[in-house]
């Protein structure tokens, strides 16, 4: 599969590294505007209550307060993520549904004044019963959190592919298990922040720390009533997102309204506690699975039920509940699959999408059960997995097409890379080894709103001088490295060194890009970038061919030099022209070959500014059933991991000592960035497996809404991670590339679970695997 590339596949330093490491990179907090006002939100202290009255008079009377907005002051427009589930109002109309629900916003001359004003707003509440668990919310007499959603069911999915009952009848082994996980927080380092400015030209500019400038632009336009052309969203550098930043926030909207109202720039920022309150991170999942297999290990059928504790609003939840089912269609051959999923409203902050959207805990339970099946059948877990593994070209029972699938290579790589054969079954007490697989979409096949829109558009402009090119993209660099990726793809496509490429990104003025979510940017924006690069190159070569009087097919660009095949051609007139234009300059071209610089300059002289465009939307993808739009993707990334753990039997503490991680990303664009995604995925998966849990008190208030009490892994908790990059060459990806951002997290939790089971014999059914939880389970096992 290996192709020779000049730029792609290298470990080129990231374009943003110098600015980020020297502190020059600008995040929202670094960008200030004259005359800024500070905004602040009033959020509900009650998890569920009627609002009887809101009195803002004292707040308005406070010197320094410029505006106070409540539901009365803004259009009554519902918004959300999925148009079928728009269920949020910017400010509570007559009811609050979780501690943190937004009631009012204030703009004042400075933040202390704004916060003081928020305290002065008087709200009369009538408390309602608080529903904090799925059980409470689905009890017969439970009040409905939203009138429109009977019995607090936000979404319900029933799917069957094949004939599950018939398949079970042919099975030699039926394995059943359950799993219960906790709500996570995204724990990105930069809390959400924004600044909105209303210009005299009628254009609202919103600078926001977001993953999705385009969706924010749409939501702000829809809710404020401004046209799309009157809303510009600009995303400067962003300190991480992981999913929770993949939709417009109440501060995006409130700052916009306040800017419109006051005519002054308005800045709003979440504190860390407010990040927890806004949430939109991983749901708490409960899964039950029944898996049927033949004696020889052939997997026959899966019957799967899932319940998601959704919090007070839908957010991404409808997609989450579908993903929780659909992503078990692969990577194993599984001819029969039935899924019943439901997402339940509770009086807690809304959950949404987080790395590995919807699929992580389903994958954890499934892979744990596979290990048990292997053991019961007397097979090595790796053997069982290889036996059932799909190959390139296979299509899952729910119509996901594996256009490339290096899963077997990944498994072989982690098997040999970890020394599986020497370790499995031969480890000293307390040590365990376990493995798991997983896969993920490489970009959602459809936008969040129903549309035939391109998912991304690209504009590449050559410098009039010919010295380089600039890629204009509305895509979102959020720390994952997409700017560097696009620069590398453009450099490769045009045939010039990376240093000659600049990228301007994250601005809705640059075009359409659906944003950084569903692991879509490398494949989708990469496609559009490649297309624009190819087009630009063709423009340059066409002009040059005309000038030289030869066929354009004889010309190519490589490493910034013009390659001419089929015999020598005299280009001295072009060079002489260029040199004359640059009399007195130090860097006249002297190479044997004509340079890109000279050719691009010529093209400008002949046709004006060179602008080439590219675009991408996925081809029509398989699946006609209800919900087929969630899970279909032009490509799937996949990975296998082996985790090695040490379990302290006396304390229950688990230390993950080593992870051997292989991921098939089709083709690494930047090898270092691919490994960074793999490392980051291990870290996030490890946190969810061992530490992370957002906890509530009986009134629905979060009791650990800080990074001191909500534990994400530190560098000291990171195992030694050995990354192995597998490149299967994805036919639907630019230069063969597909995702690595989320697929890489799928095996982490189950690999740890399986390693812990290997060390202890325990089948643990609840994360996080805190020392106490493991200790109690060990105690119970000893007693039994």
């Amino acid at each position, binding site marked *: 599969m290996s192709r020779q590339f000049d730029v792609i596949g290298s470990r080129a330093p990231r374009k943003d590294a110098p600015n980020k490491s020297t502190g020059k990179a600008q995040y929202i907090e670094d960008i200030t505007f004259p005359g800024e006002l500070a905004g602040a939100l009033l959020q509900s202290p009650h998890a569920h209550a009627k609002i009887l009255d809101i009195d803002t008079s004292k707040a308005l009377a406070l010197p320094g307060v410029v505006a106070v907005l409540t539901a009365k002051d803004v259009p009554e427009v519902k918004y959300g993520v999925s148009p079928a589930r728009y269920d949020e109002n910017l400010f509570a109309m007559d009811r609050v549904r979780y501690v943190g629900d937004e009631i009012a916003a204030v703009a004042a001359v400075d933040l202390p004044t704004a916060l003081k004003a928020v305290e002065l707003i008087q709200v009369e509440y009538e408390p309602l019963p608080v529903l904090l668990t799925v059980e409470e919310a689905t009890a017969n007499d439970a009040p409905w959190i939203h009138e429109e959603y009977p019995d607090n069911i936000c979404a319900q999915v029933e799917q069957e592919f094949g004939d599950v009952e018939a398949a079970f009848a042919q099975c030699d082994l039926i394995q059943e298990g359950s799993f219960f996980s906790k709500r996570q927080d995204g724990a990105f380092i930069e809390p959400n922040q924004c600044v909105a400015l209303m210009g005299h030209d009628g254009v609202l500019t919103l600078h926001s720390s977001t993953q999705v400038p385009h969706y924010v632009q749409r939501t702000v336009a829809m809710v404020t009533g401004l046209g799309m052309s009157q809303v510009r969203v600009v995303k400067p550098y962003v300190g991480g997102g992981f999913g929770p930043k993949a939709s417009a926030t109440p501060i995006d909207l409130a700052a916009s309204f306040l800017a419109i109202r006051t005519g002054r720039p308005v800045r709003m920022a979440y504190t860390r506690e407010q990040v927890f309150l806004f949430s939109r991170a991983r749901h708490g999942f409960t899964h039950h699975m029944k898996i049927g297999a033949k004696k020889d290990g052939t997997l026959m059928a899966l019957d799967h039920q899932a319940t998601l504790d959704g919090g007070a609003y839908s957010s991404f939840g409808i997609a989450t509940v579908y993903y929780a089912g659909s992503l078990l269609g692969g990577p194993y051959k599984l001819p029969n699959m039935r899924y019943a999923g439901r997402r339940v409203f509770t009086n807690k902050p809304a959950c949404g999408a987080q790395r590995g959207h919807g699929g992580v805990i389903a994958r954890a339970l499934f892979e744990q059960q596979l290990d048990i099946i292997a053991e019961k059948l007397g097979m090595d877990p790796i053997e069982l997995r290889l036996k059932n593994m799909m190959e390139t070209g296979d299509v899952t029972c729910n119509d996901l097409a594996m256009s490339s699938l290096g899963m077997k290579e990944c498994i072989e790589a982690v098997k040999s890379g970890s020394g599986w054969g020497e370790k499995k079954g031969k480890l000293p007490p307390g040590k365990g080894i376990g493995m798991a697989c997983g896969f993920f979409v490489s970009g959602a096949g459809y936008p969040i709103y129903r549309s035939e829109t391109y998912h991304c558009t690209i504009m590449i402009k050559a410098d009039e001088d010919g010295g380089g090119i600039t890629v204009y993209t509305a895509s979102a660099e959020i720390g994952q490295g997409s700017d560097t990726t696009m620069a590398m793809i453009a450099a490769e496509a045009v045939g010039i060194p990376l240093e000659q490429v600049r990228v301007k990104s994250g601005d809705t003025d640059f075009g359409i890009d659906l944003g950084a979510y569903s692991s879509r940017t490398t494949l989708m924006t990469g496609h559009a970038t490649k297309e624009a690069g190819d087009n630009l190159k063709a423009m340059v070569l066409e002009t040059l061919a005309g000038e030289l009087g030869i066929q354009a097919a004889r010309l190519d660009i490589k490493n910034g030099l013009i390659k001419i095949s089929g015999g020598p051609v005299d280009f001295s007139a072009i060079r002489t022209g260029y040199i004359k234009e640059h009399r007195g300059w130090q860097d006249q071209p002297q190479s044997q070959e004509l340079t890109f610089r000279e050719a691009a300059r010529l093209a400008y002289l002949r046709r004006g500014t060179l602008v080439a465009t590219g675009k991408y939307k996925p081809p029509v993808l398989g699946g006609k059933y209800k919900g087929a739009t969630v899970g279909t993707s032009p490509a799937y990334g996949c990975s296998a991991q082996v985790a090695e753990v040490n379990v302290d039997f006396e304390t229950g503490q688990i230390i993950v000592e080593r992870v051997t991680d292989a991921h098939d990303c089709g083709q690494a664009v930047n090898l270092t960035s691919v490994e960074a995604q793999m490392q980051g995925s291990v870290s996030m998966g490890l946190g969810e497996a061992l530490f992370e849990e957002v*906890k509530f008190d009986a009134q629905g208030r979060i009791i*650990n809404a800080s990074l001191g009490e909500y*534990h994400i892994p530190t560098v000291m908790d990171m195992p030694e991670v050995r990354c192995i990059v597998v490149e299967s060459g994805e036919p639907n990806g630019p230069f063969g590339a597909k995702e690595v951002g989320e697929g890489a997290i799928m095996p982490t939790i189950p690999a740890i679970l399986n390693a812990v089971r290997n060390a202890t014999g325990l089948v643990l059914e609840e994360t996080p695997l805190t*020392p106490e939880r493991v200790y109690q389970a060990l105690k119970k096992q000893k007693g039994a």
Partner: protein
Amino acid sequence: MLLPPFEYYRPSNLEQALALLREMGDQAHPLAGGTDLLVNLKLKKLAPKALLDLGGLEELKGSRADGGQVSLGALNSASRLASGGPHVPRLLAMGAGALGSPQVRNRATLGGNLVTARPAADLCLPLLALGARAVLTGPQGSREVSLDGYFQGPGYTVKEPGEILTRVLLEAPKPGQGGGYQKLGLRQALEIALVNVAAHLELEPDGKTIAMARVALGAVAPVPMLAPSAAQVLQGAKADEKSFTAAAQAAAADAKPIDDHRGSAAYRRDMARTLTLRALRQALAQAQGGKEVGA
């Protein structure tokens, strides 16, 4: 989160500092590393009128040995203690090394840890086990207070508002002594212990009999506490697994844990036993000058 407004003073000697404190009463809070104080100000748990930066007080700095006694200044940072400079007992260095993260250790001070007096404080436990005394200096002069009895409740000690904790006094280390420190948390750094234990052993010249021992327990009571029954079991006993196991049992019985969202009382009690046993083994290895036993 914003810091509330406050006046800021930076006295250049102890006398000035005490005068300012007397003038303002409990309206002024001493500021050392700020890793507790500034957090509490932001969380609006405190709203003092003034902060009194101790950073200029030479009287609170450095470490020295006078006769059989070591004196550590209250402004010693956890990172300095962790690197085990001159006169710093190894047990204290172990606790200091387990505190927070490198950034926090660079700011956090000995005095701040003792005055904040959290039940799981990583410097308090070693100091309790070492039998340390705090020097509290007020308008009337200085008094020495044994740490056993110094802690009154979470965040609450015998120190009067007008007093500054200036130094900590310890017996100079002698041969035949060893310390063990065990901290259990969810993660390996930036962690307030679920349970932590510091153990100090002094062996008779025979190298086998325990002359004296102290076991300090963290996060199992409202304050860092000594386990008196464990000390009793160990005193005069042979330094072996049998007496260590009995002492660990006794320590667990001395513990007064409660249930909270971070852990149950039952688990904490069990861990007090396990960690005491481990800390004692570690202390013995150190006392015998042998290889240290890890966790």
